[in-house]
């Protein structure tokens, strides 16, 4: 029985099915909010789903010179990594699996798509793919350290390395956000870098890199990549909501879910707002922000956390 429940959790809620549908919803919300803030109407609610199904139905072309097997493997691998990461992050109050140290495991699982993304550009013969891949790797070095610091600060403070443990530590509305507002900002900026969203959409900047590493992808592979990014976004947001915003605040039943969903939606709204308000940065500007501002501030926060 326990096994069946666990399996259902993995496959349906809060596992794969939920993550996929939830991330499609988040994608729609993102596009809708950006459109509304840009004085447009925006897409209907089923848009990301329709995009995904349509891509699945399209012809899958690989230009000559592409390493077929690797090109097909990379999106699968990154989707699997993103979904697996989702299993360790609480949704509402439910988590499929939790152990001391899953905070770091999730951070690394969420990095797998980035590395795969870099390789995806390299295995195609497109110069945009190669350039975009290089940029995504350079970007990885700029945001990953601040993001990890942002995640480690609450862990050091609350003496727990499991995400669920951190949620428990914030019980009674003692959110880590209130203790470490700076840490939250650092982690959020790091997450934007990881998700390659404006102003850090440098690797796939349309006006420079066409579509970056994914320029030559079409059909199924492209669909998987789009889905990976969506799931990565949802899991990344879930993680920060749990670590800094108190997760579901240990409210049980539907209240817990509602509170959690509200936080995720608000967080997504924040990311969409940033997308509306900023121009894209140059890679050197991003590196400067990462290493000159975020890392020193992160160290300060870390020292504060240790001292507290």
């Amino acid at each position, binding site marked *: 029985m326990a096994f069946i429940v666990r399996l259902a959790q993995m496959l349906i809620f809060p596992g794969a099915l939920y993550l996929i549908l939830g991330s499609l919803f988040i994608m729609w919300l993102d596009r809708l909010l*950006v459109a509304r*803030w*840009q*004085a*447009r109407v925006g897409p209907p609610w089923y848009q990301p789903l329709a995009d995904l199904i349509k891509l699945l139905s399209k012809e899958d072309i690989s230009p000559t010179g592409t390493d077929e097997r690797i090109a097909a493997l990379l999106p699968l691998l990154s989707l699997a990594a993103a979904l697996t990461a989702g299993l360790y992050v609480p949704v509402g109050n439910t988590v499929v699996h939790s152990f001391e140290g899953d905070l770091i495991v999730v951070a690394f699982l969420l990095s797998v798509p980035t590395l795969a993304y870099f390789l995806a550009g390299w295995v195609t013969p497109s*110069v*945009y793919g*190669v*350039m975009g891949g*290089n*940029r995504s790797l350079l970007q990885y070095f700029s945001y990953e350290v601040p993001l990890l610091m942002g995640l480690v600060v609450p862990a050091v403070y609350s003496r727990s390395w499991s995400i669920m443990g951190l949620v428990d530590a914030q019980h009674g509305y003692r959110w880590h956000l209130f203790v470490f507002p700076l840490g939250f900002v650092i982690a959020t900026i790091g997450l934007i870098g990881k998700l390659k969203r*404006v*102003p850090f*959409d*440098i690797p796939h*900047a*349309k*006006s*420079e890199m*066409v579509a970056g590493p994914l320029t030559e992808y079409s059909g199924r592979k492209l669909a998987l990549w789009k889905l990976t990014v969506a799931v990565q976004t949802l899991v990344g947001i879930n993680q920060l909501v749990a670590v800094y915003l108190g997760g579901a605040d240990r409210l049980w039943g539907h209240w817990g879910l509602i509170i959690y969903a509200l936080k995720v939606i608000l967080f997504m709204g924040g990311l969409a707002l940033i997308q*509306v*308000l*900023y*121009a*894209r*940065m*140059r*890679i*050197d*500007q991003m590196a400067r922000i990462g290493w000159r501002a975020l890392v020193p501030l992160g160290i300060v926060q870390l020292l504060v956390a240790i001292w507290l």
Partner: protein
Amino acid sequence: MMGRMTIPIGPQHPLLKEPYSVSLEMSGEQVVAASLRVGYVHRGIEQLAQRRSYVQNLYLVERVCGICSHVHTTTYCQAVERLADLQIPERAAYIRVLLCELERIHSHLLWLGVLAEAIGFTTIFMYAWRDREIILDIMDALTGGRVSHAANVIGGVRVDVTPPQAEWLGGRLDELAGQMYLFESLLHDDRSFQGRTQGVGVIDAEMVHSFGVVGPLARASGCRMDLRRDAPYAAYSRLDFQVVTASAGDVWSLAEVRLGEIRQSISLCRQVLDGLPEGDLAVKAPRRIPAGEAVVRCEAPRGELLYYIRSDGSERPARLKIRTPTLPALMVLPRLLPGLEAADVAPVIAGTDLCIACSDR
């Protein structure tokens, strides 16, 4: 990873709204050399013009470019009018100025949107193009076309501005003027915009002189050249405006000049609406144009536009030459790009406001 590679941009690329190709020789993230190939939009208009009558050519030259179509016909008409020794009615001269200035506003807003898109600032792209619709609405109401207006005829204009239209138009211009603060605050207060445009793609005075760069590009480098003031045509000598210049020559200065020019153009439009003289719209033009030759220069949104027409006394021009302001900008571009970071290529290309349809003809 830091090896050399060649990045082809175009002829189909999201940065380019028109087909031409820029080939960038890269060393890592830095551009070391750049070369251009144009000609994708060459439609042989100069040769076609020799096979069409003067009236037919009016519609042909309007289609040299879909952005600055009115100034093309204005320049063409002025050249033919000089040859036929026609004096256009004062009211027609004012209406030509009105449409030229509306077109300048629309072209500059379009440019701002394209630049914003190039630096990934889609919101500004959306807002600039939303406000550009005000101008397109006005054009639509006055001439019946959003983009191609067919407003000029040889000897004057075809469209009139009635008092109710003038009042409505003034209201729409107020609406636009009210929106301009948004773009001006972008220019002066937005750090992310400044970070991408300041000190990038500097055109210095030396380049301006050796390549004959004109228009906002020259003015952003401190060169006070504006044919509306230097060689006034239509009704410009009766109107009051300032030549906007900047000194740095970078992409940010280009934005400063263009936004300043939008303000000036709005003021010019208001002056035209207030002082529109009564009278006819056009004088009758002969079908055959007397033999002779004429060179006419006008200030298009992008700078000096030159038409040369030679007539042999028949119904068709013996030679029609169009020189557009984008040509020198294109020649300068391969000298601007080397040394830039890859990410700065987009704002620099967008900043020069190339119009390939104009330059290829």
